[in-house]
C-alpha cells in the first residue's frame, strides 16, 4: 500500500495540488512511526505505512488555518493528509466545526487494518522493564520482536491490536478524495460496548473508586488534550484564569474537574480514535469514560460523530421528544 500512497502523493505534488503532505515516517524506536510533514516531491521516500501508524494526524490540521493567519492576508496552504478511518472522522468533525476548510484538503483515505498497542506487545512477551525490545518487524499478519539479547519472538498481530482498533467500525474515512486499500475487517457491534455495560453493572462506590484511581495517576501534562483533534480551543478551560475553573496543583478534585470537563467537552464529538489513551504517559484508562459518552449520545440522540457533514451536532440542536426521564417530578 505504501507504494500506492507514494505514487498518489508524487502525483499531487507534480500537479501542484498540495503544498504540504502529512503522513507517517519511520520512527526512531521499534513499534513506532512518527508524523511526517512533506513539502516537496523529493522527500516522498520518507513515507511509511505499517501497523504502528497510530497517531491521529487530524490533530495537526487546525493549526494551519488559524484566524490570525487569515488576518495577515496569508494564503492558507493546501494540505494533503493520509487518513485512516478515525483520522477521517476527526477531519469531518473539524470541517463541521469550521476549523478547517474542506477545499484546502486533499484526503488520501486508507483502509486501516488496525494499529498495534505497544503495551500489549510488551506485556505479551515480557514482564515490565525486564527486557527491552530493540527491533520489530511486521510480516503478513505477524510481528517479529527482538530483544536486546537477540531473542526473537513471533506474535500474531490480531492479538496485539489496540482496544480501539479491535472494535473499530469505520476502518476507512467516509469523506476522501482517493481511497487506498480494500476493506477487510468488520467488527461485531455487540462486543463494542460490552466493557461499558460491565462497568455500569458495578456498584456506585466501586465505580467511584475506579474513577478516583485512574484520575489520581494524572500528572497534568495535558497530553490527552494536546493529542486530541477535537481539543483545538484557543484557550482551554483548564488554562483560563477568569473564571479560574481549576487550580494548578495535583489536587485530586482539580484533576477530576479537568478530566470530567474535558470528557464532557467531547460529547458528540469524540470519534474513539484512542489518541488520548495512547498519549497518556501514566496509562490512565480514559476510554472507559470517553466511550460512555459516545454510547449515551448514540442512545439518547441517535448521533454518531464524524459520519456526516450535514447532520447538526447533537448539543447544538434538539428534538421536542428528547429523553427526559431524568427530570425530577414532585
Amino acid at each position, binding site marked *: 500500500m505504501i507504494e500506492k500512497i507514494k505514487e498518489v502523493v508524487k502525483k499531487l505534488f507534480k500537479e501542484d495540488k498540495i503544498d504540504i503532505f502529512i503522513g507517517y515516517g519511520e*520512527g*526512531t*524506536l*521499534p513499534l*513506532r*512511526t*512518527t*508524523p*511526517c*510533514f512533506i513539502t516537496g516531491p523529493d522527500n516522498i521516500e520518507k513515507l511509511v505505512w505499517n501497523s504502528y501508524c497510530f*497517531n491521529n494526524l487530524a*490533530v*495537526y490540521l487546525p*493549526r494551519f488555518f488559524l484566524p490570525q493567519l487569515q488576518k495577515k492576508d496569508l494564503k492558507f496552504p493546501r494540505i494533503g493528509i493520509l487518513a485512516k478511518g478515525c483520522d477521517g472522522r476527526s477531519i469531518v468533525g473539524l470541517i463541521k466545526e469550521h476549523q478547517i476548510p474542506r477545499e484546502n484538503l486533499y484526503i488520501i483515505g486508507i483502509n486501516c487494518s488496525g494499529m498495534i498497542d505497544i503495551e500489549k506487545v510488551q506485556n505479551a512477551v515480557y514482564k*515490565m*522493564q*525486564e527486557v*527491552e525490545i*530493540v527491533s520489530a518487524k511486521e510480516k503478513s499478519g505477524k510481528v517479529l520482536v527482538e530483544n*536486546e539479547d537477540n531473542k526473537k519472538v513471533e506474535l500474531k498481530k490480531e492479538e496485539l491490536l489496540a482496544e480501539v482498533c479491535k472494535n473499530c467500525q469505520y476502518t476507512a474515512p467516509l469523506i476522501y478524495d482517493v481511497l487506498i486499500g480494500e476493506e477487510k475487517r468488520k467488527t461485531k457491534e455487540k462486543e463494542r460496548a460490552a466493557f461499558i455495560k460491565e462497568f455500569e453493572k458495578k456498584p456506585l462506590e466501586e465505580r467511584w473508586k475506579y474513577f478516583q484511581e485512574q484520575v489520581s*495517576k494524572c*500528572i*497534568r*501534562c*495535558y*497530553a490527552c*488534550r*494536546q*493529542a486530541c483533534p477535537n481539543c483545538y480551543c484557543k484557550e482551554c478551560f483548564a*488554562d483560563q484564569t477568569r473564571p479560574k475553573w481549576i*487550580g*494548578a*496543583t*495535583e*489536587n485530586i478534585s482539580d484533576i477530576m474537574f479537568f478530566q470530567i470537563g474535558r470528557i464532557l467537552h467531547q460529547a458528540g464529538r469524540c470519534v474513539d480514535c484512542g489518541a488520548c489513551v*495512547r*498519549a497518556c*504517559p*501514566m*496509562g490512565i484508562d480514559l476510554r472507559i469514560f470517553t466511550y460512555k459518552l459516545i454510547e449515551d449520545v448514540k442512545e439518547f440522540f441517535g448521533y454518531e460523530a464524524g459520519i456526516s457533514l450535514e447532520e447538526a451536532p447533537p448539543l447544538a440542536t434538539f428534538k421536542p421528544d428528547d429523553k427526559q426521564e431524568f427530570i425530577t417530578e414532585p
Partner: protein
Amino acid sequence: MENAKLKIIKKKDVLKFLDSLKKEYDIFVPIEKNGDIRFSKFNSEKDIPWNYRNTKIPPKEIFFPQTETLFSFEAGTSTLSNGSMTFTPIDESKSSAPGNKNYLIFGIRPCDAQAFSLLDKLFGGDDFQDPYYLEKRKQAIIISLACNKPQITCFCTSLKGKPDNEEGADIILFDLGENILTKPITKKGEEFIENLDSWFKEAKKSDVDKKNELMDLSLKKICSGVNLQNIKEKLDEAFDISFWNEIHQKCLGCGICTYLCPTCYCFDITDEIDHVAGGLAPSRGKRIRCWDSCMFPLFTLHASGHNPRLTYKERMRQRIMHKFNYCPENFKEIFCVGCGRCIRNCPVNLDLREVLVSLMSLGSLCKDKKI
C-alpha cells in the same frame, strides 16, 4: 588504593538493612505501582525491583515535588482602615517542612543522580538559594545504582554520563547478582558506610573484576549517541535560523518531555484561597509552586494577552535553547543527562537525539539561512 573502600552487601540483606534505617531516615526506593516504577517511601516492601531500567517520573520529585506549599496564611484579626482584610502568615516551621528526618534515596540511576548535581547548581547557586529544595537536599544521602542494562533510548554517554557515573551520588551500587558492591563517592557516603560497617564485608578482587566486566558490557549497549561538541557555540548563532521552522512541526505541545525530564525545573507560583464555612470573604490561603512547562502557551502568556512565544516553534526552540545554550551560559553545564525519558514517552516520537543530530549537522550558520 581506591578499591580498599569497596564493600559488599548481600542482596537479600538489603531490605533488612533499609528496614533498620527506617527510624533515622525517610527512605525512597523504586517501587512498582500501577504498572510503573516510581520512587516512593520505603515502608515494608517485599522486594526491590533490582532489574528496573528507570522510573517514568524522575526522582527530582523528591526534592522538587510537582506541588509544594511555600507558606500559608489566614485572615488576620486586624482590618485596614478601608475595611480590607490583612493576612498573617501561618508559622513557617509548620508549612511544608520535611520533618527532622534525613532523606535516603536508594537505587536511583546514575543519570538521575547527575541531574541532582545540575539542579543543585540552579537551586543552590550563588545568586539564589532555594530554601525549599536545599532543606531537603542538604540532608539527603543519594545512593545510586549503576546500570547493567541500559535502554535503547539511553544516550548518557553523549553527555557527561556513563552506566557507572558517579556525579551527584554519595554512594554507588553495583548489582553483581547475589551481592551488591558498594563504592563510596563522597565523604558523606564514606561515613555512612563506616557507621554501618557491620552490614558490609570487604570486596574481593573477583567482585571488582565482575563489576568492571558488567560495566564494560553495559557501556557497549549504549549504542545511540550524538556528538555535542561546541553545541553551545553553535546555538549562540542559531536563534533565528530556518531550522526551527520544521523541527517543531509534529510536536503536540504537551508537557510530557518537560514533566518527565530529571533536569527541567521551571515552576509556576500561585495562591490558593479558601472560603471557610461558606463565607464570601477569603479566610485562608496558601502560596503554592508547581511544575510548569515551556511547552504550554500559558507559560509565557502576558496579562495583556500578548504571548511572546505564540507558536509551537518558539516553544520548541526555547526547550532546546534552554537546555543546550542558556544553561551552559549560566551554569556551565548542559541541562540534559541523556536519560531518554522524553524520547521514550513522546506521543509522536519526536526524538531529541534526532533534533540534536540534525542541529549538529548544520554547516556554518550563514546569514542567508536565517528566517
